[in-house]
């Protein structure tokens, strides 16, 4: 009964109901969509990790990346439980895959699970397992492929014998998985790597997921603004009803319970709708996210979404939590409301000066916190905490700052209508403040992230031009072919620059040491952020190494410091080079030294300098008989790098647009719910001789002015955000720091969109006012009777 009476309110205020549900639905959708993306990616890492290790298992490896198979037998016969792995990149059908060769009898249980339902005899005699997406990518192939969800995307799981044959690794293995206790004494040339591939991926991609989560949380917060304003208004409008019900003897407990029940019902409906929408959104965004993770981190994430009850339940829980958060205040006030409290619809949301002062105090406190975090904090989490505090401070400060602007504008105004316009805007600010805060957050996030991405893009493109100087690169099939290629090419091109590397732990981080031939190509083009004197000569003289920015920043190592290279001890750091798009630590030494330090390291790629790339390409294809897939020309490489870059931030852009849309919806919801209240304020002006058209125009102008002022306020906040992203978050997450660049054209575009969003949000109430003629205004006076 009580619930029925309460619910009847919504039948009469359908728009309010729609806004409440839409707000909660959108908030849940954005949150759960992001969570679904994260869950999918994390699941994929777990799959990858399970395939090549037992939980927390270590692996034994050699710095050169290869071990003799005999060592495996020797260790087993000594009672050390290890399982061999032979892996490498391999062209299959239409694509390049990681061929992962395992020995199923000794492999850890996770690996065996991938084969659980399969045809083992077929596996042992040359069959493979791959993710359905990979099977489709490969297309026609000689290998019998069985689709399996347990294999990461981009990997083909085969027997070790099959892999050795395909990869030209007879009697060689890549590393050993330790499935039992570690040996008492480590055999010579072997080392234990505690972190397995999955954990590495987890660590590297954490920042990306934290990023997504932060965006999801921001969107959720913006959505809650809508819900809070709708629930709050509905509460105030029903004060009279509550009073009546209480007077009729409905116990406070039942009334509160009914209101809570109503809220729960809405949370359930909106939560379910939000989950559906979130799923659709995640499914639409996943291919880009997967491409980003693959391109940036080599993380094998499939591009098709799988439903997981975990994030669904989490999303629903968030919907309830959000509704509770937004409606809790209303419930609390109901609980404390005297039976015969006067109805005071206009008192709602008219935040007194005191409320605004508290907001300012809160903003200052948060600002101080952000300052402390900025000065003393370190780590990714502190970075995000700093961002959250600063953004919240800026949001809380928004109403006060706008009020100040409007007060100053009113001082300057002379005409009575203009004076009224400013005064009225200021007076209505508290009612709009939640929505304006949401707009402020969305705009600041847009400016900040946009500036960060644009700064990054500008730097990245310049860096690519410098770094990708080789006209083409060739990927040999194995070490033997690499030698043949080098011999074949030497007389035909200006220079052949072989790329060799060994995996290494540098300053405690996973990474690699690369060989660099002393050649003008590198001296002239290789960009350095910081360099010691005569760095190139000293590099050629084997007096030290170059390291990448990631390593320099994470380990705090700069020219003048020393870094330990495997087999070489501490060597001087001669320079630091930017290395965007690569998550791992790197060091470069000269080729001759490298070959002495790590003999017999296979050449992975050959960079070619030539004046006539077409002829070289033709020679490689026709005379040498290389496959076209093994050759990458400069333009391709650049296009690929740029494509990876663009995809990386596509998801960011999409979330930006969504956040701005939610903020526009919040404004719309607020303006619609306030439009009844506005009539009372506008009627006297109409009676005093302003036309309805003028009033509607003023309403639109007010929305635009507020949007414009908010945009102006959002600019410094957005730039601060960009600076934090570039100088703190990027450094922590990726290991590189970029200069902040300003792109006013982007701001103009954003201002245009913000204005458009604001116009769209205010158009409907204004249009209703204008279309109604004086009728709705007259009704204000008619209520008198």
């Amino acid at each position, binding site marked *: 009964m009580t619930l029925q009476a309460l619910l009847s309110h919504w039948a009469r205020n359908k728009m309010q109901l729609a806004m409440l549900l839409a707000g909660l639905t959108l908030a849940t959708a954005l949150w759960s969509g992001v969570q679904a993306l994260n869950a999918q990616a994390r699941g994929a890492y777990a799959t990858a990790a399970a395939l090549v290790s037992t939980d927390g298992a270590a692996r034994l490896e050699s710095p050169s990346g290869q071990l003799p198979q005999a060592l495996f037998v020797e260790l*087993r016969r000594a009672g050390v439980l290890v399982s061999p792995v032979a892996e490498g990149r391999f062209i299959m059908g239409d694509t390049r895959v990681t061929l992962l060769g395992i020995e199923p*009898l000794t492999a850890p249980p996770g690996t065996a699970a991938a084969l*659980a339902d399969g045809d083992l005899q077929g596996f042992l005699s040359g069959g493979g397992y791959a993710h359905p997406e990979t099977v489709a990518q490969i297309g026609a192939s000689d290998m019998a492929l069985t689709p399996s969800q347990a294999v990461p995307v981009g990997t083909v799981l085969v027997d*070790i014998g099959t892999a050795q044959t395909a990869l030209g690794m007879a009697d060689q293995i890549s590393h050993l998985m330790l499935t039992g206790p570690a040996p008492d004494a480590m055999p010579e040339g072997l080392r234990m790597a505690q972190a397995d591939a999955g954990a590495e991926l987890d660590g590297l991609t954490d920042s990306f997921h934290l990023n997504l989560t932060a965006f999801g949380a921001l969107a959720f917060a913006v959505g809650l603004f809508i819900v809070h304003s709708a629930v709050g208004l509905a509460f105030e409008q029903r004060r009279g009803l509550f009073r009546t019900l209480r007077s009729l003897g409905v116990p406070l407990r039942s009334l509160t319970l009914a209101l809570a029940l109503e809220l729960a019902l809405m949370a359930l409906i909106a939560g379910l709708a939000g989950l559906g929408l979130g799923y659709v959104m995640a499914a639409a965004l996943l291919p880009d996210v997967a491409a980003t993770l693959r391109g940036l981190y080599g993380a094998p994430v499939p591009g098709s979404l799988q439903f997981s009850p975990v994030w669904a339940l989490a999303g629903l829980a968030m919907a309830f939590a959000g509704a509770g958060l937004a409606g809790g205040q209303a419930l609390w006030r109901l609980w404390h409301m005297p039976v015969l409290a006067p109805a005071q619809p206009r008192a709602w949301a008219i935040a007194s000066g005191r409320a605004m002062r508290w907001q300012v105090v809160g903003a200052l406190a948060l600002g101080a916190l952000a300052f402390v975090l900025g000065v003393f904090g370190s780590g990714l989490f502190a970075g995000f905490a700093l961002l959250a505090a600063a953004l919240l401070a800026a949001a809380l400060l928004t109403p006060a700052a706008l009020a100040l602007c409007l007060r100053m504008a009113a001082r300057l105004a002379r005409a009575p209508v203009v004076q009224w316009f400013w005064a009225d805007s200021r007076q209505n600010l508290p009612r709009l403040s939640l929505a304006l805060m949401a707009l402020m957050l969305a705009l600041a996030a847009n400016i900040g992230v946009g500036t960060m991405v644009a700064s990054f893009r500008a730097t990245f493109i310049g860096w690519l031009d410098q770094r990708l100087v080789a006209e083409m690169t060739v990927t040999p099939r194995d070490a033997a072919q690499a030698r043949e290629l080098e011999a074949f090419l030497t007389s035909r091109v200006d220079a052949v620059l072989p790329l060799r590397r060994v995996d290494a732990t540098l300053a405690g981080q996973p990474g690699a040491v690369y060989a660099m031939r002393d050649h003008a190509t590198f001296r002239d083009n290789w960009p350095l952020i910081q360099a010691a004197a005569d760095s190139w000569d000293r590099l050629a003289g084997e007096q030290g190494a170059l390291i990448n920015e990631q390593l320099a920043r994470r380990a705090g190592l700069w020219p003048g410091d020393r870094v330990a290279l495997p087999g070489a001890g501490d060597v001087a750091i001669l320079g630091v080079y930017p290395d965007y798009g690569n998550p791992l630590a790197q060091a470069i030494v000269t080729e001759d030294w490298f070959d002495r330090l790590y003999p017999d390291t296979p050449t992975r790629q050959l960079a070619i300098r030539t004046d006539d790339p077409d002829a070289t390409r033709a020679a490689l294809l026709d005379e040498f008989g290389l496959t076209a897939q093994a050759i990458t020309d400069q333009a391709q490489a650049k296009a690929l790098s740029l494509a990876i870059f663009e995809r990386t931030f596509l998801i960011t852009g999409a979330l930006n647009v969504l956040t701005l849309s939610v903020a526009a919806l919040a404004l719309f919801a607020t303006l619609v719910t306030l439009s009844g209240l506005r009539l009372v304020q506008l009627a006297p002006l109409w009676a005093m001789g302003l036309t309805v058209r003028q009033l509607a125009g003023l309403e639109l102008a007010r929305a635009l002015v507020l949007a414009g002022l908010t945009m102006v306020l959002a600019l410094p906040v957005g730039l601060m955000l960009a600076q934090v992203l570039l100088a703190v978050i990027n450094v922590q997450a990726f290991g590189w720091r970029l200069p902040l660049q300003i792109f006013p054209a982007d701001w103009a575009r954003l201002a245009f969109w913000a204005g458009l969003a604001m116009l769209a949000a205010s158009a409907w109430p204004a249009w209703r006012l204008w279309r109604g003629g004086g009728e709705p205004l007259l009704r204000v006076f008619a209520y008198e009777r």
Partner: protein
Amino acid sequence: MNVKVLLFCLLPAAPVLAQGFAGLGTDAEGFAVPERGRALQFPRDHGAHPDYRIEWWYLTATLQDADGRDYGAQWTLFRSALAPGESEGWDSPQVWMGHAGLTTPDTHFSAERFARGGIGQADVAAAPFAARIDDWHMTSTAPDGADAYSALQIAARDADFGYDLRLEANGPLVLHGQDGYSVKSAAGQASYYYSQPFYSVTGTLDLPGGPVAVTGQGWLDREWSSQPLASDQTGWDWFSIVLEDGHRLMGFQLRGRQTFTAGTWITPQGQATALPDGALSFTPQGTAQVAGRDIPVRWQIDWPEQGLSLQTAPVNPQSWMDLTVSYWEGPIRVTGSHDGRGYLEMTGY
């Protein structure tokens, strides 16, 4: 389930599809099959027979420490072939599985090892004899000229137990069935089967409480085949018993639509008498709850013709080999018309 089970579905515990062609000497997939009348030759037949589908080297030992406490040890190497023949490298069709068991009156330890043939992780060499998988081994210590099995060293080790035993044979090899051709069903399934049942054993057990010196008696079974069980046979109960008067009894029953029994009565001098189907009878006398199932751990064995009536009781009823392929295997004490000790293996429960 997992991949290893798939591989070892070829083990005797599961029915083998390939039937018949017995007279031709090979089955449909090219595996050799046992033939009646083919004489076993040593040391050749101590080694592996890669043309046959399955094979094992199976050693059990009943042991006592200085205080007379009973122990049991098992060392087994199974060979299973995906295709007949042997080749080098990962192409080898041979797959190896090692089982080690160690029974005390209150604990039973078990461990397993797997390996592919062809790469040297596991193999069996006939002369000088050595069977190995990882660091587990059964190595002949016999002097030149003596039978390789007349003296052996076996060792196995896992995270929480291990043993190292030396075995000296006090009698000859014993061929089961008809000169080693052992029939396994009324339909004629058969294997080659011989034993060395006359070992005296000394050695050390590594237990969580520390090393224990033990002595006792051991029994080695060698068997290979390609088609061991009839399709309706679900499992078996197999006994190897050393009586105090020096006689040995090997007896088993294969459970199926019709129970098939067989056995060998061995004199202290090593003269063997094959016991045909029906000569022995095996009657469960009591079960124990083991690994979630009822398992008959106490038996009555009768051989009415000889007035033999034995009751068996396990040293540890929980002698469960909790491995990829699981079964009950442990030492037993024998009373009745004769006293003795032995080993019992039960599969298919």
